């Protein structure tokens, strides 16, 4: 479908050829993996990681090129813009690509670790990896799309993959949650297609670079209808308040890496689309006040929902809904500082929210539950886990000097600069939300990590390491039905030779026995080995994301510079339009 086109002028000629790679590479890898099937597990894992690493490198190169030489453009098949498919990487798109590819790479490493530890029963390699790569391709495509219909196709790529990932394994709970998610997404996609048709009917084109001049020529009322139609669609995707009810119900049931990448990326794709349409297609603050009111409601309702939750994953889902309000607030302000703050906040929030969901997955793995009422004493059980939770939690709540604070500060300052009554109201609402986030997360911290361990925690709190069958002929039947008493997820035959020598039977000595020890017991005709240490690659990937989140704090100055330039570029509109339409 896509082939290399003419590159832009000057030293950036090579960069133009890089533009389609973030879409093509994962798609090709997904096809390759589907062809390979369930064989060559090591090679497949290597391919996935290598492809995502390549996407990350390409995204970084694109960011540098877009920042130095302006938007990078690729014409598919060499067709000129009004007809052909255009992929555009300006500063905003390239920055989003860098963040998303870093996050997806980390989540892939985490899921590989989980798959290795679970022996790939819970998330089969032959299903998970291709879907995941298609998801990555879809996300990249939405960021790079140069016309509304390609944006729709990118959304569909992403959503179709996400339906598969959401219902992976086909358990009852996931089917139930997936039904809600799929129906809402399907409806929003159809409305999106209708909105694209309306735009085409009104303006005669769907190329984003051509639309500004055509839309400016339309009567205000028609433009307003188009704007509201597109905004409504993207608000569903971005889970902005009145259209967010689907999110907390569907995300928590999916596997941890899936929830993490959904929470981090999918909603931000909606925000990206809102940013793009509000700045490029419908500039001016015709609807800014409405966005600000929605942002305020989103902030407050979301965080009040989070305060009421007793399950960690649901709590995080509600904070996700709440914090979408910050980004919508920045977009609603419409000023360069507001847009810049929103972009910074998107970058920060993708990383932090993904990290927190990964940590929730680690907690589930360590203890078998994320229900706050039955958690306790984790700080003593697993200090590493405590640190991994505490840092991003404080980052999300916005404790200085972390990037959550800087992002909120940027947005609130933009609100104060705006000076309107509504802006001041949102500044107050944003502050209250930040404090309530701190309250909700501190409550979770106190209950899960700080208080003494609950009685049942002594019995749980082990991670399945390997499982060997005593008698192969009887073990096969048991493996399917018997859940390990540890609360770990994946039954399956472990590789031979990893059988550590350890005492038999369940420990009776309480916490001290469970700390850093392997225990082997016989259950259902199988030898099950459990350990209390977390799989290294899962903890490593989470730690890498925590550090990535902290890097935003250290590099906040240059990053704010970049987002400021991106905001200027977006609000000026002409760099984007000229880069696409010139040739």
């Amino acid at each position, binding site marked *: 479908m896509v082939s290399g086109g003419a590159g832009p002028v000057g030293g950036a000629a090579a960069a133009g050829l890089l533009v389609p790679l973030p879409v093509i590479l994962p798609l090709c890898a997904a096809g390759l993996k589907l062809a390979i099937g369930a064989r060559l597990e090591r090679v497949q894992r290597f391919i996935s990681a290598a492809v995502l690493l390549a996407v990350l490198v390409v995204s970084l190169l694109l960011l540098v090129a877009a920042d130095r030489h302006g938007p990078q453009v690729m014409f598919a098949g060499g067709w000129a813009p009004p007809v052909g498919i255009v992929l555009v990487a300006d500063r905003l798109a390239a920055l989003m690509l860098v963040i998303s590819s870093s996050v997806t790479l980390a989540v892939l490493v985490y899921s590989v670790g989980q798959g290795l530890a679970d022996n790939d029963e819970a998330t089969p390699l032959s299903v998970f990896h291709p879907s995941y790569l298609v998801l990555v391709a879809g996300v990249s495509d939405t960021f790079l799309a140069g016309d509304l*219909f390609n944006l729709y*196709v990118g959304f*569909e790529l992403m959503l*179709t993959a996400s*339906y*598969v990932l959401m*219902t992976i394994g*086909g*358990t*009852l709970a996931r*089917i*139930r949650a*997936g*039904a*809600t998610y*799929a*129906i809402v997404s*399907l*409806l929003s*996609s*159809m409305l999106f*297609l*209708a909105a*694209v*048709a309306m735009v*085409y*009917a009104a303006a005669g084109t769907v190329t984003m670079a051509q639309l500004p001049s055509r839309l400016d020529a339309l009567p205000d009322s028609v433009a307003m209808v188009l704007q509201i139609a597109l905004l409504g669609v993207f608000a569903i995707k971005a889970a902005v308040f009145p259209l967010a*009810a689907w999110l*907390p*119900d569907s995300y928590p049931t999916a596997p941890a890496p899936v929830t993490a990448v959904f929470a981090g990326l999918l909603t931000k794709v909606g925000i990206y689309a809102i940013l793009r349409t509000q700045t490029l297609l419908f500039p001016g603050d015709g609807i800014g006040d409405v966005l600000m009111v929605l942002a305020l409601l989103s902030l407050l309702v979301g965080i009040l*929902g989070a305060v009421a939750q007793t399950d960690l994953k649901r709590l995080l889902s509600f904070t996700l809904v709440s914090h979408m309000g910050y980004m919508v607030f920045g977009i609603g302000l419409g000023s360069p500082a507001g847009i810049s703050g929103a972009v910074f906040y998107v970058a920060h929030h993708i990383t932090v929210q993904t990290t927190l969901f990964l940590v929730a997955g680690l907690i589930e793995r360590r203890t078998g539950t994320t229900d706050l009422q039955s958690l306790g004493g984790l700080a003593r059980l697993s200090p590493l886990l405590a640190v991994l939770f505490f840092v991003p939690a404080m980052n999300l709540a916005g404790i200085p000097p972390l990037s959550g604070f800087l992002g909120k500060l940027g947005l609130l300052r933009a609100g104060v600069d705006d000076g309107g009554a509504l802006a001041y109201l949102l500044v107050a609402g944003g502050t209250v939300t930040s404090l309530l986030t701190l309250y909700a997360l501190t409550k979770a911290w106190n209950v899960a990590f700080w208080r003494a361990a609950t009685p049942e925690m002594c019995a749980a709190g082990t991670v399945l390491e390997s499982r060997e069958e005593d008698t192969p002929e009887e073990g096969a039947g048991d493996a399917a039905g018997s859940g390990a008493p540890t609360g770990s997820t994946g039954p399956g035959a472990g590789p031979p030779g990893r059988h550590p020598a350890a005492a038999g039977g369940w420990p009776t000595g309480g916490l001290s026995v469970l700390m850093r020890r392997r225990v082997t017991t016989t259950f259902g005709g199988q030898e099950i080995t459990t350990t209390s240490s977390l799989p290294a690659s899962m903890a490593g990937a989470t730690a890498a994301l925590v550090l990535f989140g902290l890097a935003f704090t250290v590099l906040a100055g240059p990053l704010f510079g970049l987002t400021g330039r991106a905001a200027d570029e977006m609000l000026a509109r002409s760099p984007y339009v000229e880069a696409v339409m010139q040739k």
Partner: protein
Amino acid sequence: MTTGSIALVGCGGVLFACGTALLLARPLTRIVLGAVLIGNGINLLVLATSGPDGDAALLYPGTSPRTMSDPLPQAFILTAIVITLALTAFLATMAYRAWQHSGNDDVPDDTEDIRIVRRATYAEERERLRAAYHKRRLEYRALARSEEEREARERSAYERLGTARDRYRQLRRRARADARAFRVRQARAEETADEIVGEDDPWQTILGADR
């Protein structure tokens, strides 16, 4: 706008309306059918955007682009049809899987909705219990108050009794002291009388113990 376009728009609108009605149902299969109808309705609307009908958009010698219909919406529709087909297949599979699990394919209520409903019933129950409790407590308080009053009366009576008793005891003490003093005086008087008797009575002196 030609009659063809009006037919397309009208048909699309009807499909959209029917699809919306189906989408509001519980069973997933109905929702799938609704999605199919809406998808087709939107495809017709997209087709209507290509304007009046014209020649097929094929470039071969002798065709003029002026008489062609706009091919771009048709390309959109082809893509959309493929996507809708894939999603329909997926949703149908999901409905089948839900049926395998639980014997129906109804889409359940939102967890948060269920929680709120439960909380509402819980709140009603709590209100009822609280009202009953208030009533009981008022009764108890009234009872306790009468109890208290009775106690207070008893106490004051007891106190009054106490003062009377104290007065009585004081009087008795005084009386006893008086009596003791009287007896002492009497005894002393008797002693002295004895002495006097002893000294004065000659018979005593004479008879002594034999008296």
